[in-house]
C-alpha cells in the first residue's frame, strides 16, 4: 500500500486512507458486524461515566435483587448495585487493561522481533529459546503463576499480559522480517549506508505492519478474555472492581436469585471477544486486499 502510494507520487490524505480502510472492513458482513461491535464497546468505554446512571459501587439498598426494568436495565445484584452501570463502567476497565497490556506487548514484541529477525545469530537464538520456554506454558497457567508471585493488582494484570503476549508478537514479527530481509532492496539500502535503525523502521517495518495489525487485534481479544478469566478465578483485579469476570464470579453463587447479574457481564465478555475477533479477521482481509 505504501509502495503504491509512493509510486503515484502524491500521498493520499489520511482521511481518504481511513475511509478506504473502513470500506474494506465493511465489505464483508461478518467483519462489518465485528467492527461495529468493537466500535460500540470502545464508545461505551469512552463515554462510561456519562452513560452509566449509577456509580460502579453505588448501592441502592431498597432496589436489591431487582430483575431488569426501566429503571435498572440489567437489573440489580445481591447488594443493590445497578448491573447495567457496572457492565458499562467495566467496559472501560477491561478494555483499558487489556488494551494497555496488548499495546505494550505489541511494542515490545515488535522491537524484539525486528531485532531478533534482522540481527540473527546468538541474539536471535537466545531470545527465541527464552520465548519458547515461556510459550511452553499455557497462557492462563503462566498468568496464574505470575500473579501468584506478584500478588493480584491492576498493575500486575497489565504486566502479566505483556509478559504472556510479547513472545507471541515477537515471533510473528520475526517471521516476517526473515522473509523481507533477504529481498534485494534491503541489501541495496544497506549498501547505500542506511543506519540499522532507519533500515528497520523505514524499510522493513512497513512490511511487518499488516501481520502486526492482525496479530495485535487477535492479542487484544485474547487479552480481554485473559483479564476476564483472571477476574473470574479471583487472581486478577480484586473486588469491588466492576471487572466482568469478577462480576460473573460474584454472581455465580447467587445465580438462582439474581441470574441477570451473571448473564449480562458474561454476555458482554462473549460479545466483545467475538466482535474483536471478527474485526481481526476483517483487518486481515482488508490488508490482503490492499496487497
Amino acid at each position, binding site marked *: 500500500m505504501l509502495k503504491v502510494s509512493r509510486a503515484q507520487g502524491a500521498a493520499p490524505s489520511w482521511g481518504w486512507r481511513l475511509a478506504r480502510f473502513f470500506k474494506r472492513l465493511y465489505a464483508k458482513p461478518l467483519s462489518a458486524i465485528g467492527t461495529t461491535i468493537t466500535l460500540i464497546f470502545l464508545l461505551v468505554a469512552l463515554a462510561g461515566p456519562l452513560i452509566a446512571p449509577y456509580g460502579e*459501587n453505588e448501592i441502592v439498598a431498597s432496589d436489591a435483587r431487582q430483575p431488569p426494568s426501566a429503571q435498572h436495565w440489567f437489573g440489580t445484584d445481591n447488594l*443493590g448495585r445497578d448491573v447495567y452501570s457496572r457492565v458499562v463502567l467495566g467496559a472501560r476497565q477491561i478494555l483499558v487493561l487489556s488494551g494497555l497490556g496488548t499495546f505494550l506487548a505489541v511494542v515490545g514484541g515488535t522491537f524484539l522481533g525486528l531485532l531478533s529477525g534482522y540481527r540473527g545469530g546468538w541474539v536471535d537464538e537466545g531470545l527465541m529459546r527464552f520465548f519458547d520456554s515461556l510459550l511452553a506454558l499455557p497462557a492462563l497457567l503462566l498468568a496464574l503463576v505470575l500473579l501468584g508471585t506478584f500478588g493480584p493488582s491492576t498493575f500486575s494484570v497489565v504486566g502479566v499480559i505483556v509478559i504472556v503476549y510479547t513472545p507471541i508478537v515477537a515471533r510473528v514479527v520475526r517471521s516476517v522480517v526473515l522473509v523481507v530481509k533477504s529481498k534485494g532492496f534491503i541489501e541495496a539500502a544497506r549498501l547505500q549506508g542506511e543506519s540499522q535503525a532507519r533500515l528497520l523502521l523505514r524499510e522493513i517495518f512497513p512490511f511487518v505492519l499488516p501481520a502486526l495489525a492482525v496479530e495485535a487485534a487477535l492479542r487484544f481479544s485474547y487479552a480481554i478474555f485473559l483479564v476476564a478469566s483472571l477476574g473470574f478465578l479471583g487472581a486478577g483485579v480484586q*473486588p469491588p472492581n466492576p471487572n466482568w469476570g469478577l462480576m460473573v464470579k460474584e454472581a455465580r453463587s447467587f445465580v438462582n436469585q439474581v441470574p441477570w447479574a451473571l448473564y449480562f457481564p458474561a454476555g458482554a465478555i462473549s460479545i466483545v471477544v467475538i466482535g474483536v475477533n471478527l474485526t481481526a479477521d476483517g483487518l486481515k482481509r482488508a490488508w490482503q486486499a490492499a496487497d
Partner: protein
Amino acid sequence: MKKDSNQIKKRSIPGLLGIILLSVLFVQACTPKSSLQEGVLRVAMQPIVQADPAFISSDPEVLVANHVYDYLIDITPDNTIAPRLAVDWDASDDGLLYVFTLAKGVTFHDGTPLTAADVVWTFDRLRNPDLGLPTKDLYTNIDRIEATGELEVTFTLKEPNPFFLFDLSDNHALILKANTTDAGTRFNGSGPFKVISYNPEDRIVLEANPNYFIPNQPKLAGLEFIFFPDQVAQVEALRGGQVDLVFLASSVELYSSLEGELGVMLVEVPTNQFDLVRLRADRPPGNDPKVIQALKLATDREAIYQLVVQGHGAIGRDSPIGPMYSQYYSEEFPVPERDMEAARQLLAAAGYADGLNLELHTPDTGNRPNLALVLKDQWAEAGVDVELVVEAESVYYGDKGWLEVDLGITGWGSRPYPQFYLDTMLACDAVWNESHFCDAELDQYIQKAGTTMNEEARTQAYKEIQRILIERGPVIIPYFSAQFTAVRDSFQGIGIKPFWGRTDLRLVSVAGN
C-alpha cells in the same frame, strides 16, 4: 376359569394373612436389639486433617470426634449444660470443688471399661503445659484432678470459674483411654459410633456402637462422612443424591440456592457468629473516639442486615453479647439511629472536615467482602473515603497482620458463653485485642462477669458492658449470622448447634421410625 380363580383367592386370603403374620413374628423374634438402628446418614464435609481430639479445631474434625468419643459434659443446641459421661455432679459453695459421677457400663470400642482414671488422664494431658496443646491456657485454673472412686472424678480449682462446666465441654475435651499414644491414627473412643474405615482423601465410615452406654442410642446404623474440598460441590452432591446432610455455615447464597429443592429440608439456627468491624484505638485516626462514633452513626444496620445477610440471623448492637445469650442480652440501651449530619459534625470536630481516607482490610471469605462494600458505600456519604483491601485469609491473618491494621473486618465464631469474646478481644490485656482498646470501667465489668458466682451480678455486669460498648466501644458488630443446614427429608431428629461441628447425630433417625 374365572370362577375357579375366584375360589382360589377366597380360600387363600386367610392362609396368606397367616403366613404374613407368622413371618412378621419370626422376623421380630430373630432380630437382635440393634436392628432398631437403621439407615446410614451420609454427611458431606471438608476433609479432616487432625483425628486426635487434643488437636482438632475445624468443624468437620470436631463432628467426627464427637461421634467416636464422648464428652464428660455436653452442651445442648440452646447452650445449656447436659450430662453425657458424667451423669451427675456437685459443686462446693465456694465454687472451687467439682465432683462428677460417671455413667456405669461405659466401654471403649476395644472392649475395656471406661473409668475415672481415663478422665483424669485425659484432662491432665489437655492441661499439661509441656505438650503445647491448644487447651493449656483454658485449664490453667485447675489445681488438681483426682479419681476419688472407680467412677468418681474430683476437680479442684484455684479460683472460682462460673463457666467451668462449659470449659469442661471444650471441643477438645473428649475422653480418651488412659495412656493412649496413637489417638491420631486409631479411633478408640467410647462414643456412639465405631470407625470401620478411614480414607483421608475419600471418606470415613462409621457403624453404630452396639454397646453404647445410653439405651436406644444411636438410632442410625451408620454414618459416612464424605470429603469434599469445595462447598459448592457438597451442595451439588446433595442435589444429586450422593449425600444426605450438608452444613452450609453462614452462606446465604448456598442456602437460597437450595430453596424449593425437592426432598431437602433447610434448617436455620441462630448463632453468635459475627463479623467485627473494628478501628484501632491507640493511634490516629482511631485514638480520637469521635471517629469511631462517626463511623457508627454513618452505618445503616438495617440495610446491611437486608443486603449482606439477607435478613437472616439478627441485627447487632456493637457488643459480642448477642441475642443468642437470651439471659444476658439486653436491648435496654438504644443504639443511636443513623445520622449523617451528626457523623459529619463528629468527623469535623475530630479534624477531618475535609474527609477521612481509610483502608479497610477484610478476608475474602464469607459475607465479609460484601459487608466491606456496603460500608464503603454508606460511609462515603459522611465523607469517609474507604479503600477496600480484600485479602486471602492466609494473608489477612498471616504474620498477625490483622492485629496491626487500622481498620479491619474479622470473623468471630459462635461460642456457648460470651465471656470468651470479652476476655480475648476487649479486655486491656486480651490476647487478640485487635482494636488495641483499653477502658478501665469496661475492664472492671469484664473481670467481674468472669469471676462472680452470682448469676444476677453477672447479668448486671454484662448489661453495663453492652452500655459501654454502645457508648464508646471501638467495634461495630452489624449482625449475627444464622447457621444453615440442608438435610434430606427422609431423616429426622437433627439438632443443629451454633458451632455445627458439635451437632449431635445420635438422635437422628430415618423419618417415620
